[in-house]
């Protein structure tokens, strides 16, 4: 079974109350889109923070990743709002 690490940053970390977690991926979850759905299905703050109309970015192994990006055992996935540095 594939296990991934998920990191949450900024407003997303605050809304979910989670900075990071290790997650055993159900076999049905193949990509970022599937992972988003899985997390939304936790309901409550998760449903709201990862709502489809929210602009939440994803990265896989520290590279920006689209919804179709496949997930593999050991991946480091991150979710965060659009960046505002500089």
């Amino acid at each position, binding site marked *: 079974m594939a296990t991934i690490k998920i990191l949450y940053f900024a407003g997303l970390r605050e809304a979910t109350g989670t900075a990071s977690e290790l997650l055993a991926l159900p076999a049905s979850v193949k990509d970022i889109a599937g992972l988003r759905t899985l997390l939304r299905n936790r309901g409550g703050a998760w449903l709201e923070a990862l709502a489809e109309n929210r602009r939440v970015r994803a990265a896989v192994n*520290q590279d920006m990743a689209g919804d179709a990006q496949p997930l593999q055992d050991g991946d480091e996935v991150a979710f965060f709002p659009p960046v505002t*540095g500089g």
Partner: protein
Amino acid sequence: MTVRIQHEDFDVGREIAALRACNAQIGAVASFIGVVRDLNDGDRVEAMTLEHYPGMTEKAIEAIIAQASGRWQLYDALVIHRIGRLAPLDQIVLVVVASAHRGDAFAACEFIMDYLKTRAPFWKKEQTPDGARWVEARASDDHAAERWRTKG
């Protein structure tokens, strides 16, 4: 090419001098300093906190500099970005680019800033009299980065 993410302030004069030292082929040094303003979107800003994604931030900025180096003739480039708590007038970011000619230096410096604003994982949280709030990304920053897709 150097990228530094740090809590401490930086000395602009010293950083620029170090970047161009000993290379007498450098004719142009363009630089940019981003500073904390005490007003944003009409509200007074008492302080701000900068969060980042350790590892990815450095990687993203290095990729931006590499892209700039492929596009313009650069001798060297430096990006320093601060994290943690900052107050108005504090320096946030420094970008310095050294080139033979000014056109390359200006373009690369602005390109790096525009891409950093949209691609480097930093997030600002502002402390205002009404409480703390995460700064929203601006469409104008996306447009600024977009420009470079077509421009020479």
